[in-house]
């Protein structure tokens, strides 16, 4: 009973921090209470893990009272801004449908999404941490941080390599540690609840974003497509960092696209904060920052005549911030002596991309296995390929071009990593390709929704 109340206090703490962050960053009337709630868990957990990184840097031990006390830099401005902006929310898109009665299809989609969410919680909680990376990397780091009440950098840099991939960012292990700190003990069953909670946040957030593009029935259809992808629901339960990363990845891109659709500059701030948390979750976040940078620059070039001076400055500042984040994420781990085993100074040479082009057939072969493999993806990639062929005239024109480019850059970026990887290509592809695709599958679902909307397709 005590453990349940401590767990509830952790959830309240995390969500409270998340709502404070949204009160500071989500100033636009464009965003409703549902939008704020859908991102509050992810933003809260990200902010708390960043706070723990800073506390450890200054030698403040991880205790419940320290975590609560040192949350004031976020909570106080959050409360002030929340009071100042009271009553400024636009009507909630969850309520903005013309009819409140659900059709047969809508009931089916809601039941399907509900089942996937319930099953994700069940699968996550019935087993302790047991899968490879979740135990070897994230859970072990979380255990070390909890027992030493800090981040012992010496241990992470130890050449004995008790923790493989010491250079991996720390959002997931620190999130697990934050729950242990609140519980006062290690509980490698309950801690897995973090992952289905990210799944729920992602599903609700994608619904709210797709709802801005297509009617309720079609929004539920696309949300159901996302929730029912076996690979996505599997990674909502197994303790890997890929689903939390997909959440921040999607947020960063969706907020950027919202800004391009004409919302206020706070969408750029939200996108940047999500970029930061993505880079704090996985090293692939650096590539995401690069994608956001390229897409924003392309937008600046394409829309330069339509953009007002203030919008151009906002976008330029966003590009500079993404570039600084990229540099920091690249340089800081190296200053601690942490080197990534795939992307590093030895492998990141322009000549390597050219000389290794012979690997391309093997990479494309693995991709087609993924595209046509229903066991992991059902038919999502087949629908995307059909969409590209059928909607080829729309894919690279209008606002959809920025969504298409973001997905295309992601695919190109991961392909580039496979070109230069010093590890065995077949092994690297077979152990990571399907996981990496999860990162941009919510973006692909949104892209499909936009394409259907542009083509005037409905259910």
């Amino acid at each position, binding site marked *: 009973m005590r453990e349940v109340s401590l767990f509830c206090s952790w959830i309240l703490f995390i969500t409270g921090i998340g709502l404070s962050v949204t009160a500071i960053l989500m100033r636009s009337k464009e965003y409703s209470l549902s939008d704020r709630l859908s991102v509050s868990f992810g933003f809260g957990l990200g902010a708390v893990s960043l706070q723990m990184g800073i506390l450890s840097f200054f030698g403040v031990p991880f205790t419940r009272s320290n975590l609560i006390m040192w949350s004031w830099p976020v909570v106080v401005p959050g409360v002030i801004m929340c009071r100042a902006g009271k009553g400024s929310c636009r009507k909630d898109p969850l309520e903005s449908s013309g009819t409140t009665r659900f059709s047969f299809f809508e009931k089916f989609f809601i039941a*399907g999404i509900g089942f996937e969410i319930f099953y994700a919680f069940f699968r996550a909680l*019935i*087993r*302790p*941490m*047991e*899968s*490879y990376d979740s*135990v*070897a990397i994230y*859970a*072990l780091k979380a*255990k*070390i941080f909890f*027992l030493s009440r800090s981040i012992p950098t010496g241990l992470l840099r130890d050449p*004995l390599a*008790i923790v493989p991939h010491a250079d991996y960012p720390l959002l997931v292990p620190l999130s697990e540690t934050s729950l242990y700190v609140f519980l006062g003990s290690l*509980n*490698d*069953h309950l801690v897995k609840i973090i992952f289905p909670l990210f799944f729920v946040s992602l599903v609700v957030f994608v619904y709210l974003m797709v709802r801005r593009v297509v009617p309720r029935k079609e929004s539920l*259809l696309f949300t159901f*497509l996302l929730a*029912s992808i*076996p690979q996505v629901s599997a990674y909502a339960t197994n303790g890997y960092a890929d689903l939390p990363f997909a959440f921040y990845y999607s947020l960063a891109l969706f907020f950027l696209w919202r800004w391009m659709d004409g919302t206020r500059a706070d969408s750029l701030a939200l996108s940047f904060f999500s970029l930061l948390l993505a880079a704090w979750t996985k090293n692939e976040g650096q590539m995401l920052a690069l994608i956001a940078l390229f897409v924003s620059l392309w937008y600046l070039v394409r829309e330069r005549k339509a953009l007002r001076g203030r919008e151009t400055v906002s976008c330029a500042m966003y590009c500079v911030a993404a570039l600084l984040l990229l540099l920091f994420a690249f340089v800081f781990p190296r200053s601690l002596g942490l080197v990534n085993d795939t992307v590093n100074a030895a492998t990141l040479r322009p000549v390597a991309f050219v000389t290794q082009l012979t690997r391309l057939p093997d990479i494309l072969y693995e991709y087609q296995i993924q595209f046509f493999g*229903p*066991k992991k993806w*059902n*038919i999502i990639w087949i*629908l995307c390929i059909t969409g590209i062929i059928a909607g080829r005239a729309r894919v690279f024109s209008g606002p959809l071009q920025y969504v298409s480019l973001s997905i295309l850059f992601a695919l190109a970026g991961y392909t580039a990593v496979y070109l230069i990887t010093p590890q065995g290509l077949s092994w690297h592809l077979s152990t990571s390709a399907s996981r990496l695709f999860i990162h941009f599958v919510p973006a692909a679902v949104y892209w499909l929704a936009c394409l*259907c909307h542009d*083509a*005037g*397709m*409905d*259910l």
Partner: protein
Amino acid sequence: MNRRRLFIRGSLALWVIVWVFFLVRPVAKGLLNEYKDLLFLSSEGKRSYMTGASLYEFVQFCNRSVGVQKRYEIVGLDRSSLDYRRAVYYLYPNVVSDRDPEFIFVFGTPGFKKEGYAMFRSMDNGRYILTRQTHRGV
């Protein structure tokens, strides 16, 4: 019904069939039994079930026998295997080390010996702990 709507509804029907099939198949092929077994186990029982009773018992035996913050090496598990990673996780705050470890945990390798190390404690013929001969007391 227009062709576009027919395409969407056809795709949806196909999607649902594939979704249900790949949802039900693993459950029917043994996952249901695993769920039934796990549902009524304690936390320790679940860890033991997932890790394998033999290895989990041995890891617990090692933790009880050597205390904490000792350096050890594992013999009998491949370093890149999931079992090895699980053992390292459960054995922390004892730290794995191949540079003059205080203990060698021998798993599933009957008769393993190493110069400078003597028998410390034994669970059975294939699961035992060797200790560095200069390090008798724990």
